[in-house]
């Protein structure tokens, strides 16, 4: 097994976990955590694909690295905006769950 | 560097000892009864462990510049983690004394910290400006 395959499979597992949490969780903060883990999984897949060049110590493929750098920054800005919206929703409605998820026993 | 076997052996011994200190600190966090003693064990053991690891790495460094960078790393972590430990301890003792409240403060099951009931305004919160 090569390094790329190991981390590529790990990235796929993170994508699956993050996707499930982002869709299935009800607390919005948990959804945001899920989106972040999903993003990290995608980044891991990209960097693993980039490491398939013959000599990753000195000559890895730089284009996926640049994409992942961009992705990290965009992910944190989206998370920041999402958290601000969560705080606003909680201040307005008193609940950190989305309206369609709330039922009788929501916080 | 040049093959001086004692240098590599000493380096490995130092890094190993550092790892043992980290392990000791982690065991302290898991086994000690309350927040303050856990904080004490963790900070002391981890700082010393990092110092040993950095010492071991210095022996394998490729030049004076790298040695100085490693020393700077250790000093900065020492400084920052000590201040962080102090700040956490201060907030814990302030909570116990009841002089401040933190919304969302969480007490673990066996911790002596009892956060003040939510909703009370912080009386001494912004004083002392």
């Amino acid at each position, binding site marked *: *097994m*090569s390094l790329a*395959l190991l*981390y590529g*499979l*790990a990235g*796929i597992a*993170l*994508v*699956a976990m*993050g996707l*499930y*949490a982002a869709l*299935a*969780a009800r607390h919005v*903060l*948990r959804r*945001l*955590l899920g989106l972040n*883990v999903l993003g*990290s999984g995608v980044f*891991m897949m990209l*960097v693993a*694909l*980039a*490491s*398939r*060049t*013959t000599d*990753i*110590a000195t000559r*890895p*493929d*730089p*284009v996926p*690295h*640049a994409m*992942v*750098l*961009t992705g990290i920054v*965009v*992910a*944190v800005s*989206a*998370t*920041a905006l999402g*958290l*601000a919206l969560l705080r606003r929703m*909680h*201040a*307005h409605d*008193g609940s*950190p769950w989305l309206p369609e998820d709330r039922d009788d026993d929501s916080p | 560097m040049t093959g001086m076997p004692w240098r590599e052996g000493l380096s490995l011994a130092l890094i190993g000892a550092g790892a043992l200190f980290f392990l000791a600190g982690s065991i302290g966090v898991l086994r000690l009864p309350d927040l303050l003693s856990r904080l004490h064990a963790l900070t002391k053991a981890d700082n010393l462990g990092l110092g040993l690891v950095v010492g071991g790495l210095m022996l394998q460094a490729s030049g004076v510049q790298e040695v100085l960078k490693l020393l700077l790393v250790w000093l*900065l972590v020492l400084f*920052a983690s000590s201040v962080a430990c102090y700040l956490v301890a201060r907030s814990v003792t302030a909570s116990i004394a009841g002089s*401040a409240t933190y*919304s*969302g403060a*969480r007490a673990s099951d066996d911790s002596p910290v009892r956060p003040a009931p939510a909703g009370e305004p912080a009386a001494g919160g912004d004083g002392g*400006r």
Partner: protein
Amino acid sequence: MAAEVQVFDAVLVVLLLWLGWRALASADLFKAVVQFIVFGLLLSLAWVRLGAPDVALAEAAIGAGLAGALLLDTLARLGRSGAADEARPLGLTPARTGIALAALGLAALLVAAALTLPERWPGLAEPALQQLPASGVSNPVTATLLNYRAWDTLLEIGVLMLAVLGVWILEAEPALPRLAPDPMLGLLLRVLLPLTVIVAGYLLWVGAHAPGGAFQGAALLAAGGVLWHLARPLSLGPSLVLRAIVVLGFAVFLAVGVATAVLGGGLLSFPREHAGAIILVIEAAAMLSIALIMVALFVGRVRAPSETGAAEAEAAPAASNPGAAP
């Protein structure tokens, strides 16, 4: 760095997957966030193992540091009621089983696709490295970010601006109760902030020929700004200077793009002899902007103490009157 799988990699992958799952499934959200921060730090190790030190720097500072600070701050503001969640937040209910199957199906497809890919693939490494002398820098990642794919980076800075705009549009929030300012925190800042500025400048400069660059430097400056705000709250009100700095990075980048489109060989194609200097100017402006934007994202919009009296009347628990507009 060996390119062969070692025991370290297996241990790291297992830890990453376990921590990732715990970060998502822990019922206590505080624990989940802490596990997420540790996950981010271990992820930096994974980037180093995969030969991506620039990404490792950014992940440690932004992905673990800044994102962790944002999450913890939000958790504190949500309070006891807002941070509570159900006992098994990701437990399988009939509704969630469908989602779980879909996620597993996607994973299976991706695994099947991954197994068909060749083990060695040159990718774009050769063309990127061949054009490096003409790009103005000698770090291939910096060359890609600021020369080959400069358009993407320009838009990325635009995305950051949109995010901070979104945060500023929202209603101002009451400030968190804080302990009195502590002399130790002041000491920490007096020692760390000048060092932070020096190291950020160093990262900006060294990014041209070694791992580093504008984003990593900006993340470091942002960390310093967040520390400052925690010690002595900043009020980043909508002043002209603030807006100017926020816009500066995007404006300089766009100006260079327009100049190259009008005078030179096309949008954002830098002439060979000036490429290095142009990249440095863009990076310096971008670093200042991005650092301030990240601090602004953390600080948010805090209601000034003078407004607190009036605001408390209108911020009455909305559970009793959910239709009340702010």
